[in-house]
């Protein structure tokens, strides 16, 4: 079967009068979409009438098609332009918003799938030094986006805590001096967290994110502790502690921790258990993330990896369980992939998610800074370098200017390769308004930054998630739950008003 789906056999189509559209056949019904993010689900007979120009003006369907830009003679240009801008506004914002600082490559865990290409805790030579940290912050503030999010990554960033503290203070001072909006986030495994560190992070409004793959045996198998011992109880303990603090003190509500879950082969049969754990901890969301064959995961793919179809089945089953919990009042947990895509599809807005946008986030939306000051198009690009291929390096802090980074041949190649208009299959896909292509992933998987979409696991996975959501959007009960999620959703983190201002941070500290 065609990945894009085909026309019904023998259908006589008349393109005259049809506006620009892509379609996807779901059997009894067909999804229509257009560049401007407008969409419509048509029963098959209506789709056939639409294609053959047999929808009379007196038919309510005619008005429906016209209002969404599917009839070429009835286009409301200002409305469609506004809609297009609303969902692709990121293309008009200069410079990256997300800056990932790898303050050390050292880590005290040896995760099966580690994307981050970590090294042993004894390798202090992979710590970012103070001078590089300062130059990195200076470079970040030389980029033109009015909003800046600095995300501390590693390795385990708490192993280079003094530099984390310095960057927090220095970046806050620079943001205040330049009247720039600053968001700070720390990705850590909680095993080295202390009360003092937590107090500092709270006082300085640094949001905290961790990894939680599920029940102890699963988490510990995926993410073994160096030297033995169980990592999962520490994660659960700190998550619970921070959640309790937030509940007890409304001023700390802003810093509710989030957790990321990575799906390995061992996770596939355990979706319900994983969701139950997240729900029991009071987590607002769970992010069912597929494993990427990048970094160490590529080497052990035969042990922990799976086919894209396996992930899509896991996703659908687990999403249905989450919807069941919501429908029966047993839980209110939301799924993050769904939130990101529904924000695009239903609200027509951009949720600021770098992996699903075009051109890709690489350089235009995000940058990653290695401990040694080298700049990469993304954290995944940095990991490819760690495996010995520096293709995705686009500069060095203190040496190259923002304009040199932006104009780097690799930056331009990533932008061109991820333009879905020029991708032969993506340009015709019904999900084009909301999807994206990832140059680093495709370089790793298919040795091409453009990729080959008919055989791309990236495409298969995301198409599967889109399909799952579209099918459920037709179910009134699921739609009600999705709508309620969107009201609660906080996934617009970049422009989220609940993130405190710098003044509020100052007042709190």
């Amino acid at each position, binding site marked *: 079967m*065609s*990945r*894009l*789906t*085909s*026309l019904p056999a023998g*259908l006589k*189509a008349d*393109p005259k009068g049809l*506006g*620009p559209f*892509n379609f996807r056949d779901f059997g009894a019904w067909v999804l229509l979409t257009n*560049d*401007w993010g407008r969409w419509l689900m048509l029963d098959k007979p209506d789709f056939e009438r639409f*294609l053959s120009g047999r929808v009379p003006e007196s038919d309510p369907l005619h008005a429906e098609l016209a209002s969404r830009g599917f009839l*070429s003679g009835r*286009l409301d*240009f*200002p409305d469609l*332009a*506004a809609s*297009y801008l609303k969902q692709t506004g990121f*293309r*008009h*914002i*200069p*410079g990256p918003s997300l800056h990932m600082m790898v303050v050390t490559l050292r880590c*005290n865990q040896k995760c099966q799938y580690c994307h981050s290409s970590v090294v*042993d*805790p*004894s390798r202090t030579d992979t710590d970012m030094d*103070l001078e590089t940290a*300062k130059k990195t912050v200076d470079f970040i*503030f*030389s980029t*033109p*986006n009015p909003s800046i999010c600095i995300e501390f990554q590693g390795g385990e960033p708490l192993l280079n*805590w*003094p530099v984390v*503290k*310095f960057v927090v*203070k*220095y970046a806050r*001072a*620079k*943001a205040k*001096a*330049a*009247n*720039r909006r600053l968001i700070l986030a720390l990705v850590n495994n909680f095993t*080295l967290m202390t009360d003092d560190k937590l107090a500092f992070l709270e006082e300085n409004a640094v949001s905290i994110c961790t990894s939680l793959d599920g029940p102890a045996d699963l988490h510990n198998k995926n993410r073994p502790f*160096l*030297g*033995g011992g169980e990592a999962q109880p520490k994660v659960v303990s700190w998550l619970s502690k921070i959640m309790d603090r937030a509940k007890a003190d409304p001023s700390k509500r802003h810093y509710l921790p989030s957790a990321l879950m990575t799906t390995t082969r061992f996770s596939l049969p355990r979706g319900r258990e994983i969701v139950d754990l997240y729900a029991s901890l009071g987590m607002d969301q769970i992010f069912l993330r597929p494993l990427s064959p990048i970094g160490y995961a590529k080497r052990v793919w035969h042990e922990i990896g799976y086919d894209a179809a396996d992930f899509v089945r896991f996703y659908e089953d687990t999403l249905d369980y989450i919807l069941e919990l919501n429908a029966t009042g047993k839980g209110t947990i939301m799924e993050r992939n769904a939130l990101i895509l529904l924000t695009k599809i239903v609200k027509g807005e951009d949720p600021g998610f770098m992996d699903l946008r075009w051109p890709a986030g690489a350089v235009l939306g995000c940058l990653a800074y290695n401990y040694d000051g080298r700049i990469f198009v993304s954290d995944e690009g940095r990991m490819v370098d760690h495996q010995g291929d520096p293709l995705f390096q686009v500069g060095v802090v203190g040496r190259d200017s923002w304009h040199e980074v932006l104009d780097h041949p690799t930056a331009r190649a990533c932008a061109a390769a991820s333009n879905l208009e020029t991708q*032969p*299959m993506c340009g*015709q896909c019904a999900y084009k308004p909301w999807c994206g292509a990832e140059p680093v992933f495709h370089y790793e998987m298919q040795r091409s930054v453009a990729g*080959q979409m*008919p*055989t791309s696991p990236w495409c298969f996975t995301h198409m599967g998630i889109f399909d799952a959501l579209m099918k459920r959007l037709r179910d009134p009960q699921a739609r009600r739950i999705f709508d309620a999620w969107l009201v609660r959703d906080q996934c617009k983190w970049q422009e989220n008003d609940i993130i405190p201002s710098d003044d509020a941070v100052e007042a709190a500290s």
Partner: protein
Amino acid sequence: MSPKKKSRPAASRKPAAKKKAAPSSGLVFTLDLKKSGLEPALGAAYLMMDRAWVALEGDKVKTLIVALAPKPGVKAADLRADFEAELASQRLRWAVAKANRGVREFVAENAVALAQQKPAAPAAEAAPEQLTDEQRSEIERLIAEVESEIKDMNAKKAVADPKGVSPSWEAQQETQKGGAKE
């Protein structure tokens, strides 16, 4: 020289001479590009790549020779029908795209114009000189503090490892293996 070879025009003889032999399980057919159009034919061939290995030859004006070899798990007998279905969809998709190219460009231009009406981003780059004296001295104090902390941290590492994180993964594994053997 056989009559068949003698009657073949030069334009089609050249690609035929270069043509790679199709696998025994595959199929080869010729498309009339005046009927199908080049873009739809190329599009259909591209979409077949999840099911077949595809090789294309021809003059790209009049004819396209399509060779399809099924990938594992795909029946060769299904490939021709699959290709025809892809081609029919491609014809419509390309016809709609071409007919609406001007409209799409016009809306995109309007969106860009709309974006440019919005207030420009604030000037970037807060140079260190823009920091207040108070902020500069605070940062200098912070740098001194962090340097001291790093020095202390490194000194402590040399003598103590309270969290047990310094031994390498490999060393730990060796220790565990050794223990198990005993």
